[in-house]
């Protein structure tokens, strides 16, 4: 197989995996009164691709996943929130990856927290109420915990899975 074809296959499989994780996430009841508290299972795929390949592959798969899951499991309103979260989180994670100074744990945690921050920013814009910032502490803590867990699994996957995509080939 040519490298391009392998890459395309990898991204396709990754998108499918991300969709399954997004769907699983909708099945998990989160009995917390603060909107936006979630595990972020699908971020596993993003973190994996970002570390294993590059930010472009990770962003492409994330963008498709966000669009499709809003279409399938969400609404137009939920798209505004998840898209703003994804854009901010993708940017922060790509930048942290670029510094080379953080492991999957740090990258994933910063991603989860910035995802939550992105959603809060969108809520402040849509509801024009700054009081939503009161949710910030809870969302920072929940993002740190879930980001850490996702990062730990992500690091394991990065170690175990060999994509056999030699970048120079």
């Amino acid at each position: 197989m040519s490298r391009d074809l392998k890459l395309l296959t990898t991204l396709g499989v990754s998108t499918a995996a991300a969709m399954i994780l997004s769907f699983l996430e909708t099945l998990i009841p989160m009995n917390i009164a603060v909107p936006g508290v979630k595990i972020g299972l699908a971020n596993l795929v993003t973190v994996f691709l970002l570390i294993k390949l590059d930010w472009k592959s990770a962003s492409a798969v994330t963008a498709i996943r966000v669009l499709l899951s809003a279409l399938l499991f969400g609404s137009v309103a939920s798209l505004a929130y998840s898209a703003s979260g994804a854009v901010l989180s993708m940017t922060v994670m790509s930048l942290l990856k670029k510094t080379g100074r953080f492991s999957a744990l740090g990258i994933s945690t910063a991603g989860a927290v910035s995802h939550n921050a992105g959603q809060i920013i969108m809520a402040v814009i849509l509801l024009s109420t700054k009081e939503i910032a009161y949710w910030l502490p809870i969302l920072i803590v929940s993002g740190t915990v879930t980001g850490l867990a996702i990062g730990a699994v992500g690091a394991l996957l990065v170690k175990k899975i060999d994509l056999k995509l030699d970048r120079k080939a």
Partner: protein
Amino acid sequence: MDKIRLRNDIILFASLLLAALAVWGALKLLQKPGKYVVVEIEGKVSAVYALDGDLKLDIVTADGHVNKLVIENGKARIESADCPDKLCVKQHAISMTGETIICLPHKLVIRIEGEGGVDAVT
């Protein structure tokens, strides 16, 4: 290299948790017992009620959605709503300034204001 990364990771976690603690602490320090319940729909104040009178009424948004607001014993809460996530119903009753109950699907914010602090009305 891995050790340095781990150290950086830990610094990152610590700063995030400290930031959360700082924001939470600052918000707690600024809180005072409230006087008014302010109802905002899509960022506009639609009604203001006294927190010390008992009250039960339906807040109806422009597209006909309903959140039932209850004010009793000096606290405000949403008793029921027809939003999909019902998170507004789960949020605890509020009575201190700055506290909010927010229904994202209905773009509804219930917040508490203190003495002479209903600034958004003007």
